[in-house]
């Protein structure tokens, strides 16, 4: 239905998939089904949250990756690092080793993604929100934006249309280089992403301006390995020569922004931060029922501990968080010189500070036509009653409810229910020993 308008960064490698059902059962949007022993993802429902990848013991779910060599097609090769990248490295690796290694690998300049927070603060004095309804919902996490589009269409008008900091950072850099008379075709801005959701959102045809903002993406785990290798190789030399620090340093607030409550703590009024997509879903159900009042701002993140828990983060999320907290304690407020530099780009940035309206893309209807949908619903309810309700997953659907829905839509058959079939065969007594009369409904 809507699959063309959204890009997905997660794919199943059929050669590795064993059809174990783990991904299917962990998927928060019921996007996965098994057929012919392999997992298949419904593109209308996938939000690229990466829960399936975390759940897969065989490494069969992978994140797409741009060719790293692509950076060398550009004269100016800028890496935009999420601050959680720094949080991946243990204390015995000084920060300037990391930046020097990134230069050795081929980047000409390095910025932190969260610098956009300091830019926004400088040009606006405070964080503005642009949404039609309260509570305003952060659009920082693209998996959450997508989730709201497909599953909570009534909440789309709560989404904050302020561009996330990383886009502001990228726009700032590009504009600054253009001001310096660097030809646009020489500028390569590469975003190092901690997750599949951000890759998907950057490449989505739904967000055409992302192609102008970012030249490409680099998966964080891949770059982490390159940097570790480079540091290991040059350790002695680095001890003498490493001195490069990213321009400009972050403020403590910016450094903590991508972690849980990092954003909400900077927004005035009553705010709430919720992380991990299943928790978010539970909360959105309530919000949709109008049960939540008096909250001004909601920070919702797909990953536990925010981006420190991104699927492409190689390290432990809690350690990363602790390191960033420690790091932020040594950071200072923005200097007047930096502010002057930022203000030079202010008029351009202010003009582009809002993003396009976000449209709902419901993915849970039985049929677009209500008459047909009602017929399917009668069938759905009837089948659901007949199914055992134990959500075993052996039919290839994540739950009895999902199978009933698939059957009603004509995408599956009742005979897929293994339990119903077992009931009618000779081993009935053996099954009774395990399940009692649970399966006799």
């Amino acid at each position, binding site marked *: 239905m809507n699959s063309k308008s959204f890009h997905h960064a997660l794919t199943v490698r059929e050669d590795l998939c064993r059809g174990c059902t783990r991904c299917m059962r962990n998927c928060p949007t019921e996007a996965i089904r098994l057929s012919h022993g392999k997992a298949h993802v419904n593109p209308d429902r996938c939000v690229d949250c990466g829960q399936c990848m975390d759940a897969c013991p065989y490494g069969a779910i992978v994140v797409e990756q741009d060719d790293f060599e692509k950076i060398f097609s550009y004269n100016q090769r800028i890496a935009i690092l999420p601050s959680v990248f720094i949080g991946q490295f243990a204390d015995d690796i000084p920060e300037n080793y990391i930046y020097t290694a990134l230069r050795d690998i081929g980047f000409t300049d390095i910025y932190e993604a969260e610098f956009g927070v300091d830019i926004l603060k400088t040009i606006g004095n405070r964080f503005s929100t642009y949404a039609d309804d309260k509570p305003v919902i952060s659009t920082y996490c693209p998996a959450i934006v997508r989730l709201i589009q497909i599953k909570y269409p009534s909440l789309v008008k709560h989404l904050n249309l302020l561009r996330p900091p990383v886009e502001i950072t990228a726009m700032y850099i590009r504009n600054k280089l253009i001001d310096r008379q660097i030809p646009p075709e020489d500028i390569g801005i590469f975003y190092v992403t901690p997750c599949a959701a951000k890759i998907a959102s950057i490449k989505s045809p739904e967000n055409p301006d992302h192609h102008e903002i970012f030249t490409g993406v680099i998966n964080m785990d891949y770059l982490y390995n390159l940097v570790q290798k480079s540091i290991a190789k040059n350790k002695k030399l680095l001890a003498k020569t490493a001195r490069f620090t990213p321009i400009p340093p972050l403020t403590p607030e910016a450094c903590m922004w991508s972690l849980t409550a990092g954003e909400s703590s900077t927004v005035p009024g009553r705010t709430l931060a919720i992380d991990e997509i299943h928790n978010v879903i539970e909360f959105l159900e309530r919000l949709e029922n*109008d*049960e939540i009042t008096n909250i001004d701002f909601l920070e919702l993140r797909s990953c536990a501990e925010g981006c420190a828990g991104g699927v492409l983060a190689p390290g432990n999320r809690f350690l990363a968080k602790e390191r960033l907290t420690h790091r932020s304690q040594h950071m200072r407020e923005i200097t007047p010189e930096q502010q002057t530099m930022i203000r030079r780009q202010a008029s351009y940035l202010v003009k582009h500070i809002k993003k396009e309206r976000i449209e709902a893309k419901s993915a849970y*209807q039985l049929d677009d036509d209500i008459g047909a*949908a*009602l017929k399917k*619903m009668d069938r759905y*309810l009837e089948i659901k009653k007949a199914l055992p309700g134990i959500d075993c997953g052996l039919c290839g659907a994540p739950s009895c409810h999902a199978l009933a829905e698939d059957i009603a839509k004509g995408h599956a058959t009742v005979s897929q229910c293994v339990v119903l079939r077992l009931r009618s065969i000779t081993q009935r007594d053996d099954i009774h020993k395990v399940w009692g009369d649970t399966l006799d409904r």
Partner: protein
Amino acid sequence: MNQSFSIPAGDFSHAGQAASEIKRLLKQLNIPPKVIKRVVVALYEAEVNVVAHSFGGSISCTITPEHIDIVVSDCGPGISDIELAMSEGYSTASSEVREMGFGAGMGLPNIKNNSDSLDISSSEQGTSIHMRVNFKEHTP
């Protein structure tokens, strides 16, 4: 399409379950979000009233391509003055119920505002609330 639910008296933690279930069904039918919200709000208030003010009851919903009909009935003690009960701010909620955040006297008025027709009948044997929400959004 018919669905029914029972509502036990006094169980506030589960009030809203029928509303959530109906919400999911209406999404499966691709009903406009604004209309779904009206249904959920009206149904939720009616559910809470049964939990808070009655001896328990049940909900029955009928969905057609044009509208949803919801009948919420309970087994007493009934509303003695329906007109008074319908007025904003009128409530007989116990202090216990108020402490739980209910009892502003806004439930019935909210049901009225969120439904396209509302019919209440009541006796000591029980109250029955019939509400209908049309799927076509009205053009005001």
